């Protein structure tokens, strides 16, 4: 019998692409299924966690899981083609195989957020990790209050995930607002910063649990604005990104002060990272 993967956390399991969904140009959701039945049965994850995906002969990258944990046999990864490995991953088709290790890291505080409104704030392309939050709440509509999604981009053409946003906007008790720093043809939403959208949502939305993902300066600006508006720091969570290579807290690439982002994050309470986020080059 082959050694169990848990014996060697560096060794990938084999997963098959069972579906491939194009979200936007350069953005693809890969639906993966572990091929070994015992590995598939044992696999569980939480929203906000990530896997290391390996593309044969090319390399391994961390990708957050965007599907619902109630169906752990089908694991979705929304991938943007931005580098050596991801450019290959988005070209995969049904039936192709990849290596998969995981899940790794901390998830979103979905237990703590129960019975509360959710304020999801994203920027740029950083919305993949928060997609799991919105999906999770929508699947368990009675457990969560209103869901408000604020999404900021630099320019109108950065507004991707069109279909996903359309579906969210149509969902019950869900409001989506968009902001772009630059104007463009047919831009019908807010022109300016995502922080300014806070003025456009109902006060109860801001009272909710806050979960953010996106560029660090944006997350910091939003978090500080929310603190100025009197929101307690313990209600603010964010997902950080670094070049994770092992996922195990061994390789050091995601060292962030006293934390490894792969193991102690990627989801952190803002209080934990607030001080370092102010420092350039950390």
């Amino acid at each position, binding site marked *: 019998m082959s050694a169990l993967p848990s014996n060697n*956390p560096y060794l*990938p399991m*084999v997963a098959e692409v069972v579906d491939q969904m194009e979200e936007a140009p350069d953005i693809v959701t890969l639906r993966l299924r572990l091929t070994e039945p015992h590995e598939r049965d044992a696999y569980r994850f939480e929203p906000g966690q990530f896997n290391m995906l390996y593309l044969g002969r*090319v390399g391994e990258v961390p990708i957050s899981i965007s599907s619902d944990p109630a169906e752990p046999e089908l694991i979705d990864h929304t991938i943007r083609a931005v580098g050596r490995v991801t450019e290959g991953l988005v070209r995969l088709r049904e039936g192709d195989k990849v290596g998969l290790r995981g899940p790794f890291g901390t998830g979103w505080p979905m237990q703590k957020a129960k019975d509360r409104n959710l304020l999801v704030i994203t920027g740029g392309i950083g919305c993949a990790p928060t997609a799991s939050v919105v999906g999770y709440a929508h699947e368990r509509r009675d457990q969560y209050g209103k869901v408000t999604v604020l999404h900021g981009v630099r320019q109108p053409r950065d507004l991707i995930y069109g279909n996903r946003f359309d579906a969210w906007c149509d969902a019950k008790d869900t409001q989506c607002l968009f902001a772009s720093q630059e104007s463009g043809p047919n831009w019908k939403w807010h022109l300016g910063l995502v922080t300014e959208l806070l003025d456009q949502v109902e006060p109860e939305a801001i009272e909710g649990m806050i979960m953010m993902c996106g560029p660090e300066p944006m997350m910091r600006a939003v978090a500080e604005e929310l603190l100025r508006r009197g929101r307690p720091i313990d209600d603010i969570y964010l997902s950080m990104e670094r070049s994770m290579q092992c996922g*195990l807290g061994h390789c*050091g*690439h995601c060292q962030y*002060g006293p934390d490894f982002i792969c193991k102690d994050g990627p989801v952190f309470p803002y209080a934990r990272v607030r001080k370092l986020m102010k420092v350039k080059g950390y």
Partner: protein
Amino acid sequence: MDTAFMPKEGLDDLIRQLADSGYRVFGPTVRAGAVVFDRVDSAAQLPVGLASVQEPGRYRLEESGNRRFFDFVNGHESLKRFTFASQEKLWSFSADGTFQSGLSESPRTAVIGARACDIAGMKVQDRTFLKGKHSPHTDPYYADRRRNLFVVAVNCTVCVSTCFCASQNAGPMAEDGFDISLTELEDGFVVETGSAAGEAIAAKLDLIPPKGARERAEESIKACAQAQVRYIDNDGIYELLFNNLEHPRWDDVAERCLSCANCVMVCPTCFCHREVEVPSMDGTGSDHVRQWDACFTLEHGSTHGRHLRPEVRQRYRQWLTHKVGAWWEQFETSGCVGCGRCITWCPTGIDLTEEIAAIRDQPGEKAS
């Protein structure tokens, strides 16, 4: 086993007994003007009669004027490369889409001449690589080498100017973490055992009662600790450094720092490694290999091709604030064992004890 005494000639016997017990035996030898660990089969290969003179950015071997084996103190290599390989295959990928582990039982290896600081460094790395309070995962490659390592410690009776293990509670005497420990005196060695494997080897040696040798050894070790000039004031050091992330001293050190990563590579506790792909030329398989890495390279702190720490000051700060600061919060110990290698082997002689003292001497404004 009680403390015993081994005459000088016994060292050859120790090497032979280890080899006969199936260990590959490594010991200190001289190469390219420095002491390195290499395979040995007799005590004659050891750097007898040599001492090292170490200053920031400078290492020289000189005649010690005596016939002792271990007065050289140390070279650039610690125990690290015996437990955490500098490059190794983690696994390979085949054309059929399967993965084969690169893990194989490592050879049993004995290292003669590990210093207390080296053992302390290994214990610090245990907290990263072995499952426990500080790590959720065991690195099986590290664990395998660690399990098959036999450590012959040598307590230091001599130190060099760059040593400050005493300040880091990491020496000069090895309290545990060894199989056999030796303390060298003029006429021989005080011998102690620290494990069953060590007992088994010691039982094959011609040992005699120590008489007063143990007391003489303890005095020499104590004198060695007292002779150390450098130190780190660890009191509140995590807060000190993280409250001074914009201190002008980071700019000052960046003018001297080459960003060459030698400090990281010689550090017994630095654990960073990167994973690289080595595809075969026939287009079928691939080896997935890891190598020691360092936070001084541009790529180390890159995400999506963007450099997080483009400036030298940011990279030096990343290294030092983690090593002696955040390590306490993360692993409940300092990441520095006071071996002094980063001082000696920094080509431009950057001395972390001086950098820390400079910041402590004139702390800047506290970050809010």
